[in-house]
């Protein structure tokens, strides 16, 4: 399946060419091999899940994708072009946005300002126009505000617009963080455990937002998640990792039937 150029999902969406291709990635920290010779791709318009037991190297994989870590071996192709060792902010400028496992919002700023920060990669004004405010800076601010207000409507967080994010409950903070990532209008959105620590209702809300983002904006999404029910429901294709190695890759149904995956999650009898 991963060799064909495009494929159609059961619900009728067409998945295009690869946005991001990981080729034989190996990442070491001294003697510890965090990721070992992993290859997979993330295709235009799909929801791609990365799963695996704790310490499998999933978050390290996301960190490789957005440039926190640089792998010792292998290469990363973005829109078919080989990507050099860029800094995270340069990769952000290319259109990769992300949320974190443990919320990484700007605590001292309001919801609105946090999401406005997501627009920084699209900023065209310099410090001199900010000094004067009137004119270019104010115009850009208004344009950004209009885009941000659409996201605020979409995520249904109008009432907390001006609340400092430090005061918000956990579930809402996760939503604001998603909003900040969406504000960048990314071509690839990375979500690191978007549903960690949530109750069933909040998980349902978050799943709905993820599906809606994919559906309405056509955003390609790669997510790490531990809740198998959610992953099997919303993901188009799943990569399974264990001890830094890839042990499975395919549709949820294929992965569920894979003996290696079952062994990794349930353990193998030693007799």
């Amino acid at each position, binding site marked *: 399946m991963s060799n064909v150029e495009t494929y159609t999902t059961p619900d009728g969406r067409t998945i295009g060419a690869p946005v991001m291709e990981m080729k034989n990635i190996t990442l070491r920290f001294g003697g510890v091999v965090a990721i070992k010779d992993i290859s997979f791709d993330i295709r235009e318009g799909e929801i791609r899940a990365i799963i695996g037991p704790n310490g499998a190297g999933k978050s390290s994989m996301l960190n490789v994708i957005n440039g926190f870590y640089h792998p010792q071996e292998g290469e990363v192709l973005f829109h078919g072009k080989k990507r050099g060792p860029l800094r995270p902010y340069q990769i952000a400028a290319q259109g990769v946005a992300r949320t974190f496992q443990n919320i990484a919002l700007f605590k001292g700023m309001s919801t609105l300002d946090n999401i406005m920060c997501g627009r920084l990669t699209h900023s065209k004004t310099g410090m001199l126009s900010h000094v*004067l*405010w009137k004119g270019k800076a104010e115009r850009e601010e208004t344009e950004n505000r209009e885009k941000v207000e659409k996201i605020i409507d979409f995520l249904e967080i109008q009432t907390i617009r001006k609340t400092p994010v430090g005061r918000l409950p956990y579930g809402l903070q996760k939503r604001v963080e998603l909003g900040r990532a969406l504000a960048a209008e990314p071509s690839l959105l990375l979500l690191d455990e978007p549903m960690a620590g949530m109750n069933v209702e909040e998980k349902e809300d978050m799943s709905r937002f993820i599906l809606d983002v994919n559906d309405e904006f056509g955003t390609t999404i790669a997510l790490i998640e531990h809740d198998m029910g959610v992953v099997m429901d919303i993901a188009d294709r799943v990569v399974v990792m264990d001890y830094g190695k890839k042990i499975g890759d395919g549709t949820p149904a294929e992965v569920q039937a894979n003996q290696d995956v079952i062994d990794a999650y349930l353990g193998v009898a030693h007799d």
Partner: protein
Amino acid sequence: MFYREAGDFKTSYSKDEQTFPIKLDRTGYYAVMLFAFCVVPFMVNDYWASAVLLPFLIYAIAVIGLNILIGYCGQLSLGSGGFMAVGAYSSYKLMTSFPDLSMVIVILLSGLITALVGTAFGLPSLRIKGFYLAVATLAAQFFLVWLFNKVAWFYNYSASGQISAPERTIFGFYITGPNTQPAVAYLFCLAFAVGLAWVARNMTRSNTGRKWMAIRDMDIAAEIIGVNPLKAKLSAFAVSSFYIGVAGALLFSVYLGAAEVGESFGMSKSFLLVFMVIIGGLGSMFGSFAGAAFMVLLPVLLKNIMVGQLGWATDIAAHFEFVIVGLLIVIFLIVEPHGLAALWRVAKDKLRLWPFPH
């Protein structure tokens, strides 16, 4: 006319983002400006100008600068005394080398020179954070004071090692030297303080400020959303040093008239500015002015009470002044760790509901 936003409708996003969203605040701001520019100059005498108004305005400029660095960008600096010295010595060299240069340009150029120096000393911030950075900036403080003491070129080889400001005029009025009119010096400093505060406010409410605050709140997340940490931190150091340099230049040329680096721009000046920032409130424009006012006015007030009202000896009053100011700072920080700006905000929040309980 109650203090609230009800009935004050905003029909555009720019109106929603103005500095004073509540009408009474706007009116109050214009009233204060009118009073400061049109009434105070006619009332001001030499005592008020030199004991209260000039130091308040000049320190307010420096505190805004330091607040940009500490309060908005989260980079702790203890080198501001040294940077003020850079501003002061630059203005001295500029005034003596180019006697015809307008004072406005002299002050602004001094700021720019300080910005360059500050950026250079900000380079360690790319590697180290927090207390470690504070210690690194302390090196700037010691180095700069040593430099201005050691290299005689900076004080034009004067025998005393002091620098003293030559007489300069603006629009025909003396603003430096012994013939300075208090009202003119006051207006000169006020124009700088108001203009620079306006510029700082514009920067902090736009993307420049968001980049700084993103770095302050979480530098890793800031990098992920596309903030270049190198540019953000160094621009904060540059802007902050510009403000501190302008303040240093004004302090020397308009206020003190003569200065010796170790005495006027020593370690204690750096700490004084940090106190002002913390007492005023981190990351607040109002707090910058409030902090400067608090630290300038309180000693004057105490002195007037103890010497003027109670009739104590001057030296005892001076000692007690230290005790009381120190004590008040401690008590104050326990009661409201976020500074005067937070108190002001709480008061305004209460006022928005008054006279109803909810």
